[in-house]
């Protein structure tokens, strides 16, 4: 007999195992529809959903792989296999077999009733397989811990720690549950073979099978099945019944007297604990190639006529099985998945999974509605029964207060949620529910924090990148500027005169065109900005636009001024040229002007002929006169000297004055211009009146015509 150590705390609730304990595990008809949860059975913590590998309408065989983890590297997710042959239906949202009771995606499988296996690959000699091959086989078979935590077995067996002792957990300490008990009675050989295979895989030198002393038949059958003189020493240990001896950390303490450090696993002490149902599943997967699609589940509680252990295919809806066992819905107080201490309320429509070890359909007498929660009286009973040596009343205090930091400091995450504290609480406080709620909240907060940290990192990287780009842009601009200045300096050094002359000799026309372009673009810009400002609604932007408009206006003014200056300059230059020209040149120019006038008048004459205008006779006269003048000028031209004349001061001054007037006229506003025009027209009308009164009779009609035209124009202007 091995020496055993006591655990701290622990309780002795009524066992209630006799209802199902020594009966064979039965098989019930399978349902028409299976609902396979795409979420991993991972105890309280749900993982990422699995990715279905089949589409709606696909024919599947029993044991065929139908869903696996999206992330291939993630060996913490186990694949899902079809529990029977049939057709894949839709993906539906159904209640999960999870304490949160939330809805989750389920893959629907419509059974064809044939229950045909897909081809399996058995291994006649599993002990001769490579370690990695074994791990792959276990992973592919979708095996996870069937005691309740649901941790993927392949990931657990691939531990980096050296393992010297493998502990097979057959304690099953929680009341009501007898699934492992019955399994040990019926499948002792498979369990022993599976244990030996796992020990072989881990390289463990010792196997300890731990069973509580309230399972005499299981102990007997396992003892009978124990092989003699095997390479790893295998022994059976019977434990005194105490709840929760089956928790992995508690079991380590009972068997070895060692405590698993906070935040670590038993593997760090060279120990590994695996459930009996899990080792059996490992053996079946490796020896016969069967994936995990079926498990033994206890159906108990007084609301059932027949209480028994049942082979349950995963994905079977609970109510389907309950109805077959004579479920009295009217007398059902609570429907619980798991044991009465650690389990949770189950929706009858939920489907069972790989970790569902017990369903309790308790009658109202058996489990009446819990009494009202009373205030904590600090009696300290929870403290004395806590197997994890925590301070339950303190944790309760902080959980109610949502003081997550203090909860973490008080090692909330070392709580195994065994429910011993809730069981003994005289105030009927559902302590474990508070802890579970707080744990979920902390996990959510941590998830948010990781997201925030990720966003911060990305934001900072973004900022750095933008700044870097700005710096690079500036550097490039700087480099361009320096390059430009050096090139210009070099050019100046190489050929200083030509560059200057080209600068000076730039034709005036070009300059004018350029200035015109400037003015035009400034006008366009102003127009665009004004339009934008009218459409803009945000005040801050409007202000900005207003500033831009002002700037554009200034630029436009500048351009106009420059253009005017340039015009004045060119005009004065032209005038000076004119004044300095020789009589010959002057005459030539006069001749040119006359010729131009002649062409214009001829044009007008032609138009008048077409329309038969009243000015026809006047125009014919004007053309004749102009032709005479041109003849005269051509004759005179040859007699004139070619030497340039020196214009006297008076002429120059008069010219300057004329220019100034011109410039002044240019700067007049449109109204002023109009006014000036009106005045000049009026003046001309007066002169015409004078001329009409003094001239010959034959000219009077022409003059009258002109007068009429002028008067018409004046009227137009006034309008």
């Amino acid at each position, binding site marked *: 007999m091995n020496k055993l150590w006591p655990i701290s705390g622990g309780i002795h609730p009524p066992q209630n195992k006799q209802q199902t304990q020594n009966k064979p595990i039965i098989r019930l008809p399978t349902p028409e529809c299976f609902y396979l949860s795409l979420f991993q059975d991972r105890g309280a913590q749900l993982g990422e959903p699995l990715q279905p590998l089949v589409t709606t309408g696909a024919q599947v065989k029993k044991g065929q792989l139908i869903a696996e983890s999206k992330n291939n590297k993630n060996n913490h997710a186990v694949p899902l296999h079809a529990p029977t042959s049939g057709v894949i239906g839709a993906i539906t949202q159904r209640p999960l077999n999870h304490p949160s009771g*939330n809805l989750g995606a389920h893959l629907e499988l419509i059974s064809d009733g044939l229950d045909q296996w897909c081809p399996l690959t058995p291994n006649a000699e599993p002990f001769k397989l490579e370690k990695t091959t074994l791990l792959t086989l276990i992973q592919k078979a979708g095996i996870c811990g069937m005691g309740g935590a649901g941790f993927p077995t392949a990931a657990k067996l691939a531990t980096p720690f050296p393992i010297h002792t493998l502990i097979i957990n057959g304690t099953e300490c929680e009341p009501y549950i007898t699934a492992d008990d019955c399994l040990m009675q019926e499948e002792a050989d498979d369990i022993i073979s599976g244990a030996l295979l796992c020990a072989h895989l881990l390289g463990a030198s010792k196997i300890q099978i731990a069973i509580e002393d309230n399972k005499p038949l299981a102990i007997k059958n396992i003892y009978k099945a124990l092989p003699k003189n095997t390479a790893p020493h295998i022994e059976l240990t019977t434990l005194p019944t105490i709840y929760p001896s089956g928790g992995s950390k508690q079991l380590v303490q009972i068997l070895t007297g060692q405590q698993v450090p906070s935040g670590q696993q038993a593997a760090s002490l060279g120990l590994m604990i695996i459930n009996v149902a899990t080792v059996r599943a490992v053996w079946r997967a490796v020896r016969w190639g069967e994936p995990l699609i079926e498990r033994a589940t206890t159906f108990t509680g007084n609301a059932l006529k027949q209480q028994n252990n049942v082979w349950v295919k995963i994905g079977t809806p609970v109510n389907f099985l309950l109805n077959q066992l004579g479920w009295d819905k009217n007398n059902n107080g*609570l429907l619980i998945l798991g044991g009465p201490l650690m389990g949770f309320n189950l929706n009858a429509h939920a489907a069972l999974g790989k970790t569902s070890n017990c369903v309790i359909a308790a009658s109202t007498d058996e489990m009446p509605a*819990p009494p009202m929660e009373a205030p904590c009286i600090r009696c300290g009973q929870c403290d004395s029964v806590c197997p994890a040596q925590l301070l339950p009343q303190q944790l309760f205090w902080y959980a109610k207060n949502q003081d997550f930091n203090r909860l973490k400091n008080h090692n909330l995450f070392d709580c195994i949620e065994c429910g011993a504290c*809730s069981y003994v609480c005289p105030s009927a406080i*559902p302590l474990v529910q508070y802890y579970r709620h707080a744990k979920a909240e902390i996990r*959510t907060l941590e998830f948010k924090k990781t997201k925030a940290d990720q966003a911060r990192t990305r934001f900072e990287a973004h900022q750095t990148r933008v700044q870097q780009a700005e710096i690079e842009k500036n550097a490039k601009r700087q480099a361009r500027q320096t390059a430009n200045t050096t090139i210009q300096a070099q050019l100046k050094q190489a050929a200083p005169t030509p560059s200057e002359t080209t600068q000076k000799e730039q034709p005036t026309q070009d300059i004018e065109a350029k200035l015109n372009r400037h003015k035009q673009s400034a006008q366009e810009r102003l127009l665009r900005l004004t339009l934008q400002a009218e459409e803009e609604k945000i005040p801050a932007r409007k202000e900005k636009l207003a500033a831009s408009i002002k700037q554009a206006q200034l630029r436009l003014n500048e351009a106009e001024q420059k253009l005017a200056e340039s015009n004045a300059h060119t005009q004065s230059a032209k005038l000076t040229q004119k004044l300095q020209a020789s009589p010959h040149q002057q005459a030539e120019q006069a001749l040119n002007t006359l010729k131009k006038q002649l062409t214009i008048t001829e044009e007008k004459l032609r138009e008048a002929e077409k329309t038969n205008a009243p000015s026809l006779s006047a125009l014919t006269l004007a053309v004749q006169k102009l032709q005479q003048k041109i003849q005269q000028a051509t004759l005179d031209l040859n007699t004139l000297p070619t030497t340039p004349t020196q214009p006297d001061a008076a002429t120059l001054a008069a010219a300057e004055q004329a220019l100034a007037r011109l410039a002044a006229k240019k700067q007049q506003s449109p109204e002023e211009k109009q006014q000036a025009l009106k005045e000049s027209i009026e003046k001309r009308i007066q002169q015409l009146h004078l001329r009409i009164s003094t001239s010959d009779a034959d000219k009077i009609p022409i003059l009258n015509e002109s007068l009429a035209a002028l008067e018409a124009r004046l009227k137009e202007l006034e309008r």
Partner: protein
Amino acid sequence: MAFFSEITLGQFILQPPWLSALIALGGLCFFCGLLLGFAALRFRVEGDPIVEQIDAILPQTQCGQCGHPGCRPYAQAIANGESINRCPPGGQDTINALAHLLGVEPLPLDAEHGVASSVNTVAFIREDECIGCTKCIQACPVDAILGAAKLMHTVIASECTGCDLCLDPCPVDCIEMRPLETPIQFLPWSNPSAHIIASSRTS
């Protein structure tokens, strides 16, 4: 003269008590000064630690609703005395945490800067309408939009903070905010009052 010639330098120092006290205290001061100087150099803190702490509380959506170009500038502003109630994405929880950290009264959220939403959102680009102008890519503070000029863009939903800064620059209004589904593993659990496991103690 005979008196002076008979005593050594050490004896002379020890002779007048005030002088020895002065030397002892002076030496002590010098030593402590050295220690402080060394500590000031050795344990120098880079940056303002309070800004880091405030920044750690802020939700890091980088949305700019507080009027600052990101969460860290707002953290800096709070450290310089700005009001703590200008963060709509953080909501009342963030305000309470800031109030706790800074030892001030928690204020209600300033409605001028937006209203807190209980639903997390994520930007979504209607891809067939996207013209590939890259304007949203430039606006995104966390580089969560993928795409190139004249090619369709898309939002990396897992990186999007839901700040909606990409909505405004879009010339064809093909971006919309969609509510983000909380992963099922992070859905809140029901509070204990409703679901209680009855224990078997009555039987």
